[in-house]
C-alpha cells in the first residue's frame, strides 16, 4: 500500500459568468510510505488544488485518489484522522485566542483525550519554538510565528501523512532552516510528507523525489538528482582562455545550443546527449585546460521544463 495514490485526477473550476478553468488535468502520482515528496510548480500550477483534494476539502471533477488506501471522496472520514495539513499564510487560526488555545482546540477536533491534548500541545509548542509566546493572542504573532503554529497544528493529530503547502512562507531564513531540520525529524519518524512549494532549494534539500507540475499537468517525477540528469543534455561547460576562433568552431558543432560570455570566461550549453564529450575533446585538443562542466540545479531544471514566464501565472 502506498501513502498517496492519485489516479488521473482532474479538477475543473467553473467560476460564475466566466470560462471554466482546468486546475488539474489527468494527474497521476504515487507516493510510497515514508517518502518526502516535493510538489514543485509556479503559482497557479495546481499544487494547492491537489493538496486540497487529498485533504478531502475539495472534490475532484474526475479520477480518484487514495490516502493510505482510503478513497478521499467515498472514505473521507477514514482519511481525516490519518492526515495533517499545514498551509502557508496567516489565515486559518483564531486570532483572538492564544497559540496554545488554538492548538488545544485542534487537538480536541482530532479526538485526543484531555491529557493527550495538554501533553501534545506543550510538546509541539516547544518543538516549534513558541514556548515563550504560547499564551499570547495569535493576533500579536509575527507571520513566521503564525506559520510555526500552523505547523504545530498540522502535527497535533500525530498524522501519518502530512500535506505541507508552502509551509515556510513568511519564515525568516533561520526559522526556515529549523523547519527543514524538523522535516528531517518527521521523516525519521516514518511519516510521509507531501511538500508543495516553489522554493527550489527547499525541495532539493528535503525531498526524496519531486514532481514538477505546471498548468495542472505533471511534467516529471524524479529524485532531484535524477531530474537534473534528465536534462543533462543541457549540461554547461565553463571555459577560460579559449580564443574566438575556437569558440566559433564549437558554436558550429551540432548539438551546441549556445556559446555566451559568462561571469568568468565563456559558458557553452549543449542541447543533445553526447555532445559534451565532443566539445571537451575539441577544447583539450586545442590546449584549453581551464574547463569545468556542471549539471543543472533543480532551479535550472524547473526553468527549463516550465519555462521562464516571469510573473505570469
Amino acid at each position, binding site marked *: 500500500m502506498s501513502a498517496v495514490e492519485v489516479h488521473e485526477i482532474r479538477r475543473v473550476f467553473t467560476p460564475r459568468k466566466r470560462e471554466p478553468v482546468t486546475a488539474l488535468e489527468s494527474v497521476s502520482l504515487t507516493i510510497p510510505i515514508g517518502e518526502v515528496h516535493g510538489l514543485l510548480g509556479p503559482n497557479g500550477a495546481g499544487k494547492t488544488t491537489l493538496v486540497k483534494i487529498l485533504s478531502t476539502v475539495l472534490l475532484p471533477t474526475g479520477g480518484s485518489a487514495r490516502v493510505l488506501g482510503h478513497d478521499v471522496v467515498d472514505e473521507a472520514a477514514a482519511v481525516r484522522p490519518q492526515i495533517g495539513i499545514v498551509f502557508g499564510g496567516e489565515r486559518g487560526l483564531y486570532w483572538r485566542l492564544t497559540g496554545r488555545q488554538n492548538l488545544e482546540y485542534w487537538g480536541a477536533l482530532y*479526538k485526543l483525550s484531555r491529557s493527550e491534548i495538554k501533553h501534545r500541545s506543550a510538546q509541539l509548542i516547544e518543538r516549534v519554538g513558541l514556548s515563550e509566546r504560547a499564551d499570547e493572542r495569535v493576533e500579536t504573532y509575527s507571520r513566521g510565528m503564525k506559520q510555526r503554529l500552523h505547523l504545530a497544528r498540522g502535527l497535533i493529530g500525530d498524522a501519518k501523512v502530512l500535506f505541507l503547502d508552502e509551509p515556510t512562507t513568511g519564515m525568516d531564513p533561520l526559522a526556515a532552516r529549523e523547519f527543514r531540520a524538523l522535516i528531517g525529524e518527521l521523516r525519521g519518524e516514518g511519516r510521509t510528507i507531501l511538500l508543495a512549494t516553489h522554493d527550489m532549494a527547499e525541495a532539493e534539500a528535503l525531498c526524496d523525489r519531486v514532481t514538477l507540475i505546471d498548468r495542472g499537468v505533471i511534467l516529471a517525477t524524479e529524485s532531484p538528482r535524477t531530474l537534473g540528469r534528465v536534462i543533462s543534455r543541457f549540461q554547461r561547460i565553463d571555459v577560460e582562455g579559449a580564443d574566438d576562433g575556437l569558440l566559433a568552431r564549437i558554436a558550429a558543432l551540432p548539438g551546441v545550443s549556445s556559446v555566451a560570455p559568462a561571469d568568468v570566461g565563456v559558458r557553452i550549453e549543449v542541447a543533445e546527449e553526447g555532445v559534451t564529450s565532443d566539445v571537451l575533446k575539441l577544447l583539450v585538443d586545442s590546449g584549453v585546460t581551464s574547463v569545468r562542466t556542471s549539471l543543472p540545479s533543480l532551479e535550472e531544471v524547473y526553468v527549463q521544463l516550465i519555462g521562464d514566464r516571469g510573473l505570469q501565472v
Partner: protein
Amino acid sequence: MRAFRAGVWLELQIIRSSPDTLIPFFTAPLFTIIFLMIVRNGGRHDLQPDALMAPVLMTLWWFALFHGGNLVTGDRWQGVLEWILAAPSSLATVILGRIASIMTIGLVGFFEVWAVGRLMFGVSIPFEHPLALALTLLVTVFAMAGTAVAFAALFVLTRNSYTFANSSSFPFYVLGGVFVPIALLPGWIQPVTKGVFMSWSSDLLRSSLKPAPIDNEWGRLGMVLLLGTLSFLLGRIVLFYVLRRMRTTGELATA
C-alpha cells in the same frame, strides 16, 4: 461527544477573549425599560410580566441569530472552515456545541431582566408555575440552538450574513409573539405563526407567569421541542448539502 465539548470550550474561550459578543446584555435592560414603560403608561400593569419576558426572548434570539447564525461564515472568513472539515470531528456537532455554549450564556439575560425589573420598577417575574417556566426556557433554548444551526448553514451561502441576520430578527419577533401575543395579530397571519417555535414558547412563557392553570402544557412544550428538533435536523441537512456544494465549487475558503 468530544466534538461537542470542543465546540463548547472553543466558544467559551472566544467569548472570554471577545467581550463584544455579550452586547445583548447591555441592550436587554434598555428593552426591559422600554417595554415596562409602555405597559405601565398604558395602564396595563397586568402585562408587566409579559413586558419582562419579551427582552429575555429577544436576548436569546439575538445570540442564536447573530452569533450562532454567523459561526460557519465567521470560520470561513478566518480561513478555519477548511481545516475543521479536514479534521476527524463532525462540523455540525462542533457547531452545535458552540451554539449550546452561547445559548446557555444567553440565559443570564433572564436574571438580568428580572433584576432590572425589580430594582428599577419594583416589578418581579411572578413564578406562578416555576417548573413550566424553567422547562419552557430550556426547550426554547434548545429550539433556538437548532434554528441557529439552520441559519448558520444558510448564511454561509450569502455574501453578507449580517444583513440577513438583521432582516430575520424582527419578522421572528412579530411571528414569534415576543411582545405582542399572537392572538392580537391580524387573523390571516396567525396560521403562519403556528410553524414558528417561538410563538409556542412565548405563549407558554406568558402562561407560566399567570396564576391560572396552564392549558395543554405538555402538548405546547412538545410543539416547541418538535419544531426545534425539526429546525436542527433541517439545519444539519442544509449544512451537509451546503458544505458538499462548497467542496464541489471550491468555495470553502474565501481566498
